[in-house]
């Protein structure tokens, strides 16, 4: 009997009907269901009115600048005057510029190294801090410092460490017989230095995200895996990584956005140089608008960046949903 009753009960439950309630026909006027729907409509209206101010503000804060930027990207004006409509000319100018593609290439590398570099360091430290080490909490706080310290301060500190041949790090290299590397003056070394700086600034964020995810993992799973003969590596790849996958994808999305939009890390340390070696798209957009006073092309660069970010975010978000379903 129960086997025949169960589907019916589930079906009723899905329709929100209590056991014994009438499931046939429409609810009677003035009955409990009608009152519920009336309440529900009232609640919806309340939510609508409660949300409206926020929505209006959001539209004003995000919508207006977006529309205004769209206008600027399709005109040849300045920051004050709209200028003449030029259609897609600014986009064509930007896309045919070698400087744009050089900046796009740097942005890509900067983002890849920034995201995965900081993730790897953050993951390593999160795993380390999960084990019982002396003064673990203190270490955690100290490790947060690169993220907490204002970027102006940390970039000044890094400049002091590497800028001149007599700075601390080049002096160290010299004393070790490794020559005197010009960390910010050599285009290749400058690019590497900026990326390392980004990883240094960002790993605490990753560490905290992963630490939070690891805290929610049931340790008995590892005990069970050990009993089944799984090695530490197998436990890491088969248990830890899948269980923190959701947080990992979210942190990747966020860090990708942080990296692509990162202006101060690059600009304060190198200004985009030497010889544009560390000019990312956001730095190029800034320099185009505020140093070359070419508003249309500069905003067009920003638009292209936004579109790329939206695509990347959507792809990664799909991955999150996929990992949630699994």
């Amino acid at each position, binding site marked *: 009997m129960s086997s025949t009753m169960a589907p019916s009960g589930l079906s009723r439950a899905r329709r929100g009907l209590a056991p014994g309630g009438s499931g046939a026909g429409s609810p009677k006027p003035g009955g409990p269901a009608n009152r519920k729907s009336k309440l529900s409509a009232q609640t919806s209206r309340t939510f609508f009115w409660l949300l409206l101010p926020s929505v209006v503000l959001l539209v004003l804060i995000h919508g207006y600048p977006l529309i205004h930027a769209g206008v600027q990207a399709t005109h040849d004006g300045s920051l004050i005057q709209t200028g003449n409509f030029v259609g897609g000319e600014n986009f064509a100018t930007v896309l045919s510029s070698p400087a744009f593609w050089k900046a796009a290439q740097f942005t890509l590398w900067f983002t890849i190294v920034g995201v995965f570099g900081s993730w790897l360091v953050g993951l390593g430290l999160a795993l380390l801090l999960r084990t019982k080490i002396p003064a673990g909490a203190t270490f955690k706080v100290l490790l947060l410092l690169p993220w907490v310290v204002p970027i102006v301060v940390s970039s000044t500190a890094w400049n002091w460490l590497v*800028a001149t041949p007599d700075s601390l790090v080049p002096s160290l290299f010299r004393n070790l017989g490794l020559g005197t590397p010009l960390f910010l003056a050599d285009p290749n070394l400058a690019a590497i230095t900026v990326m390392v700086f980004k990883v240094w600034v960002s790993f605490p964020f990753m560490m905290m995200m992963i630490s939070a995810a690891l805290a929610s993992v049931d340790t008995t799973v590892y005990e069970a895996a050990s009993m089944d003969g799984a090695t530490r590596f197998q436990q890491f790849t088969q248990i830890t990584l899948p269980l923190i996958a959701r947080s990992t994808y979210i942190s990747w999305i966020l860090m990708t956005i942080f990296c692509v939009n990162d202006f101060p890390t690059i600009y304060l340390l190198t200004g985009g140089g030497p010889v*544009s070696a560390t000019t990312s798209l956001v730095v190029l957009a800034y320099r185009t608008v505020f140093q*070359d006073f070419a508003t249309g092309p500069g905003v067009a660069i920003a638009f292209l960046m936004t579109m790329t970010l939206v695509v990347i975010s959507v792809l990664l978000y799909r991955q999150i949903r996929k990992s949630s379903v699994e």
Partner: protein
Amino acid sequence: MTTTRTTFSRRGFLGLTAAAASVPLLAACGGGSASQSGGSAGGTIKFWDMPWATPALNEASKKLTEGFSGANSKASYQIIQWNNFYQTFSSAIASKTGPAVSTGGGFQAFQFEQQGQIAYADNLIETLKKNGMYDDFLPGVVEPFKTDKGYVAVPWHLSMRVMWYRKSLFEQAGVDVPKDWATLLEAGKALKKIGAVGFATGAGAGNNIGNQAMIMMMINNGGGVFTKDGELDVLNDRNVEATEFLLELVSNGIIDPAAVSYTSANLDAQWKDKKAAFGAHVSQMDTRVGDTSGDLLVASPIAGPHGDKGGLVFPNNIMMYTNTPSQEASEAFLVYYLGQLKELWKQKLMNALPVFKSIAELPEFASDPNNVKIVKEWQPIAKTLAAQGDKLNANLAVLDGGQALNEFTQTVLTGKTDAKSALQAFESGLKTVLNK
């Protein structure tokens, strides 16, 4: 037991929220132009000033500004930071909340003039002629601001780039201070042997000294980025020669190989730490780096291979805007402020050259031999970024802080180029952004 409860209905909450949300909207719609904040008939003249030196200068300028009372007006003072200053001005002007009078970027007046935001200073110039202040200007400092339509601004100080040297390093190296390019090269080689830098410069984040040194050397050789008519002329022979010389300094290690990444702080540290022996810098660099012992001195202008001499000058100016409570009040304020400038030099707050002869003669200014040398030897031969021409214009703003010049400078300082290739790239970079 009676409890008093404050009832807060949903509707009340919504009303409050809507009211709160409307505040910024109303504020945004309100505008608030320069003309609206006045307490008197002429309104308040909003004067925006930049941090030209230490905060003490701005404090003094604020006092001067607030001391204005004329044309039924008073004046208010606001400091605008250099970071993103063009954006700050543009946004304010676009929303009609900008200043009535301001200092600012060297070519800002020309940029805003193109956009119809500048009030011409012709009447003001006439007033200055009548009250005798015009005759007090140093020769040739006002005319660069004259356009076909009128004067876009009036000068208030000259930001000079001159050659400095550290006397003790030259003594230690046993060489004389360079008098021309040949002796600069020889001195640089000798200085290198004692670990000193024979041509100190920097082109790192936010440091324009390197860019300015490049242009200065072109001017020093009788060159410049523009023709006398204002047309682009980057690839002229004199510029090529100057760039070749700079590349020679790089290849000989006379220019620090790390200079390309030196910020202003890095470069100043080189001067302070007795590493830099010779190079272009701002006037009163000794004060700036904190060494007024007399070891840091302004060098005499050096001669190029063809005998030319030249320095670089930025005539910083004060401009008036069309958005003002009263043009008459703007002009009255500016006449008043120019007349009060003397106080800033008297208090030794300004680290630049004055534009008035009477200020240049002040004992507080003239007691510094470096200042005297700059006024006597550098100011008469100094040219603007418009060289070989002399008419200032909006395009110079693009040259001054733009990517093309910075890219050129950094390419030269890395030494991985030849003069013509670097100049060609410079020219094509400028062509893409200069107003046609």
